[in-house]
């Protein structure tokens, strides 16, 4: 009996703990995923909230009104300027939830009074009008509208501009866009926020990551000389890694290979490092992370679709930024920003402040590091390489007088498209304009000739 009693005690404690575990897990999920679940497009509860509450206003960082509510009809009114409306369409979304996880839905808790305390709610009910919080975003309306005016209107793509020291996003445009004031119906192609949800291979822009991996895993790699014959072939299937336009770069150093964006060299590096070293560095840049940022829902980037180790041509193509890589424009911007910020990747932020109708500051902006992507010394070396890309390499058309621009271009081949996707990721080194920029123009041409000039205009605008 004594033994039985002892065993009963153990069982009882175990069973009792088991009862409480699901709720502890529930609390954890609520903190980690609650906002995502609540603002999911399948949630019908928000629709009910919207009919009772006058949603708060949304401003840009300099106080320009982006969205407000008509107190009579409770319908949302967007900025008066059509260019600004179109530039902001994907960040803001609309109250009907046309764009997944946009500000209008993701911050519904603030906008529709979900953060109100009981007393506030009571006060407001007594006054006969329930109002949500006003939001100030980190976005720069003027910059966004300017990007809207210079982006080729017939192309798909995305532009992200962020402060690499604080993580504040200044602009996040996605194309094709729509006008929330007039569009009665937004199709799937228009509603996709390409900055945060479009996973594709970044082409040579990914060489920043391959370079970081080589610098950290291959001692003496900077002193080596590589020979480029315009391509590398692998195995019995004769799968080849070609250089852009089949150009043979001859014998060149790592720096020259980066500046001229030589695929053969970077394919060789990936092959020598092996899958694990490249994958490890990619992971330190956040590729494969489950992103749960406070202000944004960003699709998780993938190193490869399969869990298997990459070999031969697959690995080589990945080193050159092709194959199964899937990275969003925002994430590429964060990768460049990490290099600019001495290896520290900041958490991308959209919300500068939230203020209740009674004037209570509910949230104030505080910059937070997301992760350390690479050592500061390696970041400095890469910055030097990226500076030369703009000085004498593929990114020459991004040169801005008075600013020191560092960048990497990419020209990603997509099987289903006639033309390549043009990529540009870069940043201004100067402390006065601490911005990182990512420009992607789909189905257009080479990064250096299509994306870099757009980035050049953005830097010039920021430096004015």
């Amino acid at each position: 009996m004594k033994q039985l009693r002892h065993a009963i005690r153990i069982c009882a404690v175990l069973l009792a703990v088991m009862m409480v575990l699901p709720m502890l897990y529930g609390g954890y999920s609520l903190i980690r995923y609650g906002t995502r679940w609540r603002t999911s497009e399948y949630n019908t509860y928000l629709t009910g909230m919207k009919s009772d509450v006058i949603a708060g206003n949304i401003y840009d960082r300099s106080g320009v009104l982006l969205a407000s509510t008509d107190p009579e009809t409770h319908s949302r009114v967007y900025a008066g300027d059509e260019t600004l409306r179109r530039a902001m369409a994907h960040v803001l979304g609309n109250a009907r939830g046309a764009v997944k996880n946009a500000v209008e839905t993701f911050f519904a808790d603030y906008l529709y009074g979900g953060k109100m305390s009981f007393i506030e709610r009571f006060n407001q009910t007594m006054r006969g009008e329930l109002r949500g919080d006003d939001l100030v975003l980190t976005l720069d309306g003027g910059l966004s509208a300017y990007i809207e005016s210079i982006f080729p209107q017939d192309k798909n793509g995305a532009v992200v501009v962020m402060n690499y020291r604080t993580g504040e996003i200044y602009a996040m445009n996605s194309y094709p866009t729509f006008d929330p004031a007039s569009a009665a119906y937004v199709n799937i192609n228009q509603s996709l926020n390409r900055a945060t949800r479009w996973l594709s291979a970044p082409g040579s822009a990914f060489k920043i990551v391959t370079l970081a991996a080589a610098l950290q895993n291959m001692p003496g790699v900077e002193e080596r000389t590589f020979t480029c014959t315009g391509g590398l072939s692998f195995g019995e299937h004769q799968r080849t890694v070609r250089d852009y336009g089949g150009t043979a770069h001859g014998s060149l150093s790592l720096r020259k290979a980066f500046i001229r964006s030589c695929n053969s060299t970077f394919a060789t590096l990936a092959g020598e490092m092996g899958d694990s070293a490249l994958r490890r560095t990619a992971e330190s840049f956040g590729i494969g992370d489950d992103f749960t940022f406070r202000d944004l829902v960003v699709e998780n980037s993938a190193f490869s679709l399969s869990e298997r180790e990459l070999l031969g041509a697959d690995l080589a193509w990945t080193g050159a930024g092709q194959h199964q890589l899937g990275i969003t424009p925002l994430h590429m911007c964060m990768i460049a920003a990490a290099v600019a910020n001495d290896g520290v990747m900041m958490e991308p932020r959209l919300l500068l402040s939230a203020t209740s109708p009674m004037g209570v500051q509910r949230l104030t902006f505080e910059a937070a590091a997301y992760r350390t992507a690479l050592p500061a010394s390696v970041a400095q070396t890469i910055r030097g390489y990226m500076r030369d890309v703009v000085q004498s390499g593929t990114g020459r058309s991004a040169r801005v007088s008075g600013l020191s621009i560092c960048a990497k271009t990419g020209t990603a081949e997509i099987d289903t498209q006639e033309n390549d996707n043009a990529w540009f990721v870069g940043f201004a080194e100067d402390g006065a304009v601490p911005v990182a920029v990512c420009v992607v123009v789909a189905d257009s041409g080479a990064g250096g000739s299509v994306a870099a000039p757009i980035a050049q205009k953005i830097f010039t605008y920021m430096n004015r």
Partner: protein
Amino acid sequence: MNIALKAQKNGRRSGQGSLITGTVMLFAFCGFLLLMLQKPTLLTGVMLLAVPLVLWLVERVLPRLFAMDRLLLSLIDFLCALGVLMQYRFSPARGLNQCINYGAGLVAMIGCALAVRAVRNWRLLIWPMIAAGCGLLALPFVFRAGSAGLGATAWVSFGSFRMQPSEIVKILYLFVLAYFLSRRRVLFSLIYIGGMLAFLVAQRDLGTAAIYGGTALVMLYAATSSLLLILSILGAGMGAVAVLYMLFKDSFFLTVQNRIRNWIDPFATYDQLGGGYQMVHALIAMANGGWWGTGLGLGNANTIPEYSTDFIFSAVMNEFGLVFSFVVLAIYALIVLRSADIALRSTSAFHALLALGGAALLAVQTFIIIGGITKMIPMTGVTVPFLSYGGTSLVSCMGIMGVVQGVANRNERILREDRMLAEGGEEAP
């Protein structure tokens, strides 16, 4: 024994019981009052008074007729009251039906308690119990209810009356296991457990099979104190699953794979048949509720298809919030601990195992379903004890608690007899 006696006497005198009863009554009253304020109807008004009154009657009168553990009774009543309130909130007709189910549950509870108290010679009953258990579990094969879809085929229907035999068989299962394990007939118990599990798996009722298996593990460990035995059973179980997987890779295990997919990312399978639709809405309901809930009657958990049965707790989390839900689960934990306490006070291994096994049945079932709806473990459809809508489920849970109450009653009687012996039989209680 003396300390235990004193504690029990003190407990009764200081009126702990009536305080808890009062709280449960107040909870039910306030709940229906809220519903009344939102939508005043005559029926809600009647419920507002009748439900607390019934709770009072049950907790005052029942322990006088039949000595039982009043704390356990109050805790069960609280959960049942919450269940009736939630059902009524969505559909008054279902709320009323649930009241009737509660009545049937009370009858089952008293019946089981009386059986534990009255039967002295279990040897005669155990073989008929095994036979009845197997017979009942075989019923779904004979009278199939509904279509044989992807899910479980564990229901039996006679005309408009539908029941799930595996719920009722739980009580028989408890008795049989406690009987053989208290006599240390482990091998026979294992064969019996294996047989029952085979029936359930053949009906594709995985949730119930997990409840039966989990309870068996707890009782086996309690009876033998042998961790080695438990580990080897778990190992053998995994082997059996591997063999079954090889055999039924393309039929039965497709359902299992589907459930695991829905568990990993329900949003990805939202639009598929048998996909994550239900799970997504359960998670949204939980997120809408947040820490403090949307308020009773203000939630929208009825977007979940099975909100009244398996997902009723999502509705509780939605409208009462996570903090309150934590308290509710703490009450389940208290029921488990109290039952274990009753097991510890028992003087025979058989009765100790009965009380512990009853607690384990409830605990494993609660864990499987609450873990499922919070996406902690893959979802398997079983009812939430005391809360879900449905007669069979409530009758079976209250029957199990009746078994525990019967053990408590027996403990009390033995205690009284001891005391009378000690005091020379002068003072009658």
